[in-house]
C-alpha cells in the first residue's frame, strides 16, 4: 500500500518540522498516561502484594476478579467515568469532565487492575523464595510487603510498563471523558481517531508511527534500567 510509505515520510516530516500542535499532543499523551500509571501503581502494587502474601477466605474470588478486570473495555470505563463526572452525575460539581484529570482518572481505573494482577504474580513468585527467611526474621506483614515490593522493583517496572502501554494506546475511555478537545484534551490516540474519521489515513498512520516510537523509547529506557539491574543480579 502506498499510504504506509507516505505515512512514514509524513511522520518524519512532522517530527522534523517541530510542529507545536504535535508536541502539545505528545506531551499531553505522556502526561496523562504516565500520571495514570504512577497512580495506578500506588493503588495496584500494594493490593497486588497483599493478595500475593495473603491467605484469606475468598482469595480465589479476588484473584478471578483481578484477572477479569484486566480485560475491562476502555469504552466501558470511559462511560462509567463519564456518568460520574457528568454535570448531572454524582461528581459533576467537581467540573472535571473534559479535562486531562478526567482522562487520568479513566486510565487509572483501566490499568490499576492490570498492575495489581501482574504484580501479584511477580510478588508471589518472589515471596515463595523469601517467605521462610522472612518468617524466621519475624517480619510484620507491612515489612514483608515493603521488602517484597522493593526487591521486585525491577520486575515491577515491567508491570508498570504494561500498564503504561495499555494507557497510552487506548482511545475508548479518553475520547468519552476528554472529548478530544483541541489544545485541551486531545492526545495521540484521539487525534489518530479524528484523522481517521476525516479520511486522512496517511496523517493518522503517521501519528500512529510517532506513538509507536514514543512507546519504543519508553520501553527501551526501562529495559536499559532492567539490564543494569540484571548485571547486578537485582532482577
Amino acid at each position, binding site marked *: 500500500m502506498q499510504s504506509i510509505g507516505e505515512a512514514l515520510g509524513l511522520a518524519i516530516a512532522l517530527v522534523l518540522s517541530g510542529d507545536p500542535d504535535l508536541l502539545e499532543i505528545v506531551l499531553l499523551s505522556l502526561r496523562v498516561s504516565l500520571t495514570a500509571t504512577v497512580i495506578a501503581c500506588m493503588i495496584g502494587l500494594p493490593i497486588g502484594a497483599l493478595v500475593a502474601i495473603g491467605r484469606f477466605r475468598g482469595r480465589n474470588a479476588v484473584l478471578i476478579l483481578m484477572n477479569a478486570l484486566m480485560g475491562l473495555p476502555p469504552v466501558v470505563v470511559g462511560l462509567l467515568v463519564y456518568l460520574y463526572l457528568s454535570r448531572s452525575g454524582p461528581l459533576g460539581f467537581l467540573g472535571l469532565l473534559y479535562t486531562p484529570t478526567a482522562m487520568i482518572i479513566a486510565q487509572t481505573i483501566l490499568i490499576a487492575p492490570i498492575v495489581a494482577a501482574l504484580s501479584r504474580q511477580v510478588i508471589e513468585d518472589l515471596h515463595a523464595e523469601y517467605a*521462610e*527467611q522472612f518468617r524466621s*526474621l519475624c517480619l510484620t506483614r507491612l*515489612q514483608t510487603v515493603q521488602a517484597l515490593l522493593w526487591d521486585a522493583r525491577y520486575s515491577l517496572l515491567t508491570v508498570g510498563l504494561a500498564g503504561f502501554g495499555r494507557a497510552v494506546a487506548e482511545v475508548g475511555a479518553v475520547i468519552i471523558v476528554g472529548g478530544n478537545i483541541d489544545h485541551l484534551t486531545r492526545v495521540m490516540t484521539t487525534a489518530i481517531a479524528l484523522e481517521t474519521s476525516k479520511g486522512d489515513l496517511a496523517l493518522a498512520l503517521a501519528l500512529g508511527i510517532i506513538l509507536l516510537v514514543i512507546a519504543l523509547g519508553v520501553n527501551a529506557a526501562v529495559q536499559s534500567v532492567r539490564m543494569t539491574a540484571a548485571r*547486578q543480579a537485582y532482577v
Partner: protein
Amino acid sequence: MKSDAEDTPTADAPILPVTLQGVALRLGGAFVLEDVSLELGQTGCTAIMGSNGAGKSLLLRMMHGLIAPTSGDIRWGGAAPSEVMARQALVFQKPVLLRRSVAANIDFVLKVRGQDRAQRDALLDHVGLLHKSAQPARLLSGGEAQRLALARALATEPEVLFLDEPTASLDPASVLAIERIVSDARSRGVRIILVTHDLGQARRMADDVVFLHKGRVAEHSTAQAFFPDPQSDAARDYLNGRLVV
C-alpha cells in the same frame, strides 16, 4: 520498630533448655517425624545428624517454629516456638539473600529489628566481607554468601542459632571460615543447633549429637561418646559409611 516477641510476656524469661515431648509430624499422610522427645541444654553446640530423609531439617524448622508439629509439645523454657522465634535465627543451606547490596542486606535486618545501624560494618568485618559492602549480594561466591547470611543472623543478636547444613557444597577454606564464625558466636554464649552431614565438622563443633533415623531419635549422646562408640546400629552404620535404609 519493635519485634513481636519483645512485646510478649516471656520477653526476658530464659528460653533454654528446650524440651520436645512426643513430637510427631505428618506430611502427606505419612509420619516424617515420630515420637521425638529431647532436651537440649543451656549452652554449647548440638549436631543433628542422620541420613538423607531422616527428618533433620524438618526437626530444626519445628524447633524454630516455622513448622507446627502434628502432635506433641515443644517448649522453650515454657514458651511456644512462635513466641520466641525472634530470639533465634536460622541460617539455611542455601542462603536467601535480598536483591540488594551486601551492606543493604545487613541494614535491612538491623532496621526491621530496630537495632543500631552502626553495627553493620563491624558485623561485615567480622565475617570478612567489609571490602564487599557495596557489591550486589547475589553475585557473592557460595562461601561469601553463606558468611553474609551468618552475619545477618548474628545481627539479630540471637540466643539460639540454627544452622541447616550451612557448609554443604562449600570448599574447605570456606567451611573453616564459617566454623570459625560459628565457634566465635558459641563462645559468646549463643546456643548452636546444627544440622550437618559433615562428620569432621560435627567432631570439631559438636558437644552432643542427636542422631535421627527414619524420623525417630535413634540416640542422643555426648560427642565424646557418640563418635568412638555409637549406641545404635543406625548410627554405627552411618559412621562406617554404610548405606542405611
